[in-house]
């Protein structure tokens, strides 16, 4: 029992979480339009670009245009973007549900922007920062995690990016290949966890 407690506390953010090849669980989270969204709502999808992101983090903001571009390019090809805000708004008020609605409205997000209200989804996925992408591919075994990491390799300037990780990963999957790289790191904001 003690051992179990030890692992359940120490592993909350780092030890848990998906690795490449793991089957991803669906979720049912509140969208900015007031509806609840699950991946099961997209029976025709070939996969999903799940992005843990938020309002306040400058890295998330710097990638906003690129998230919108990904959604416009890949939703019609079967890989819609689903954005999830994992932050606790008592720590970061700018990431509250009402502020999410405001931002989605201002920027006309062409994708759902969901609130991980009990912070269970980001922990299950193993997101550690915003923005943090999990690319899922629908396969015989379910929704399989095929890429984890950054959108591209230049957070400051989209035009100066020389590697477009997510785009390349989706192209690989569409060709029946596995993404390479399938895991990248990026500087980002910590996820703000509710204080118990």
């Amino acid at each position, binding site marked *: 029992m003690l051992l179990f407690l030890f692992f359940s506390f120490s592993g909350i953010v780092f030890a848990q979480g998906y690795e490449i090849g793991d089957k991803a669980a669906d979720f049912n989270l509140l969208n900015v339009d007031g509806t609840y969204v699950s991946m099961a709502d997209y029976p025709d999808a070939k996969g999903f670009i799940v992005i843990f992101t938020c309002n306040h983090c*400058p890295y998330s903001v*710097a990638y906003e245009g690129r998230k919108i571009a990904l959604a416009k390019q890949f939703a019609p090809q079967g890989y819609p973007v689903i954005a999830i805000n994992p932050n606790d708004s008592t720590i*970061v008020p700018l990431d509250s549900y009402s502020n999410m609605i405001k931002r989605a409205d201002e920027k006309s997000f062409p994708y759902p922007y969901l609130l991980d209200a009990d912070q269970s989804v980001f922990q299950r996925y193993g997101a*550690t*920062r915003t923005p943090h992408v999990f690319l899922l591919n629908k396969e015989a075994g379910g929704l399989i995690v095929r890429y984890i*990491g*950054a959108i591209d*390799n*230049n*957070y*400051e*300037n989209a035009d*100066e990016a*020389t*590697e477009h990780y997510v785009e390349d990963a989706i192209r690989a999957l569409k060709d029946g290949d596995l993404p390479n790289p399938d895991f*990248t*790191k*990026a*500087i*980002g*904001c*910590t*996820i703000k966890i509710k204080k118990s």
Partner: protein
Amino acid sequence: MPGKTILLTIVLFNIMQLQAQDISVNVLDFESFETLLSKKNDTVYVLNFWATWCAPCVKELPDFEKLNKQYQDKNFKMILVSLDFRKMLESHLLPFIEKNRLQAEVLMLHAPDANAWIDRIDPSWSGAIPATLIYKNEFSFFREGSMSYTELNQIVKPLIH
């Protein structure tokens, strides 16, 4: 008495302005920055990765400043490595250093291709900030997340002589 106070205020204001002009921050790419990591010269290096917009980073800075003040005359070197965007140097970083009167050295790491270098700081780092690297010769400690003065001192104190 009020006259004296005003005079003092004016003098102080002038000194602050002079100091403000002195604030400068080196902007390094990763290759230049990395030379720092291989230094094995008996100095305890405390590198804190932060940014002006990162709330938990800003919150822990006083603890780092306290540590720096305590050991700055010893075999100790603290560097606050700002990951602010390059365009925020003049608009955010320099005014922040001035306003908070940071005493530890600040440098800006301008290396947007982070995937190429995060593992070279520490393989356990996912890339979230704040993050802190402490090293001396072969000793190395890394933490992703906030650190308090007490935690820092526990690691640094035995390395100081």
